[in-house]
């Protein structure tokens, strides 16, 4: 344990050691969006969700494309497609801003996975659908409004 700690402090060899420590479960990844803590999924608003994801002030980006209907008749099933044109994209998160728990899903991409995700989400009411993209350790975001005729979260 002490040897490991010294290695971490060495700096140059630090990066690899930290990765090993993360893999061994000794350290929790904080800035890595992949593997966001479950607390982020339980956050009741967008600000808290982003905070729990360790994302602060993501930059607006035109390189993120969100494909979703302008009007969703059924909020229980809203198809959403997110494509990131930002080089080095490592994760894509999808948030429905006015849902009771806004963070819908987080996708960590690796091993040749393209910066593209297609899924179907629930929306309680008309709101912005926000994508947060991690690339090169930085956070980027884009949003698209989806009007919901019948909410899909209540009952």
């Amino acid at each position, binding site marked *: 344990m002490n040897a490991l700690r010294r290695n971490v402090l060495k700096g140059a060899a630090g990066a690899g050691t930290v990765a090993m420590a993360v893999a061994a479960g000794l350290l929790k990844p904080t800035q890595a969006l992949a593997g966001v803590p479950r607390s982020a999924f339980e956050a009741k608003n967008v600000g808290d969700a982003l905070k729990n994801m360790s994302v602060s002030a993501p930059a607006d980006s035109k390189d993120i494309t969100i494909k979703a209907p302008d009007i969703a008749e059924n909020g*229980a099933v809203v198809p959403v497609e997110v494509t990131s044109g930002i080089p080095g994209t490592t994760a894509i998160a999808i948030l429905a801003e006015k849902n*009771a*728990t806004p*963070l*819908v*899903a987080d996708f960590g991409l690796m091993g040749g*996975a393209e910066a593209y995700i297609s899924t*179907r989400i629930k929306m309680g009411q008309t709101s912005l659908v926000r994508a947060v993209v991690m690339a090169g350790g930085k956070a980027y975001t884009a949003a698209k409004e989806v009007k919901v005729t019948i909410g*899909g979260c209540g*009952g």
Partner: protein
Amino acid sequence: MAEPMRIRATMAGDVADVKVLMNHPMETGLRKDAKTGQLVPAHYITDVTATVNGAQVLDAGLSGGISKNPYLGFRVKGPKKGDKVVVNWTDNKGDKNSAEAIIG
């Protein structure tokens, strides 16, 4: 035990297009049963991972905000026809399911 899931993987140029359909109720825990007025307990997939030929390509966290019977589409650059894609999920009750497909 959970219902089987469906998975399909096809090559489009040098990119494998993978489509997965999981069978799951995805209950948020916030919905009330129309008859009893009681909250339906949360039951949703929390983690989805995917590998191509054993190498991980996707590590996803999900919530009850994903629609019932979740659909997931993703693309992976590099694999060849005949390579194997495996998708696993785990839900908040600890149930697990796995499916695999050969890229065609």
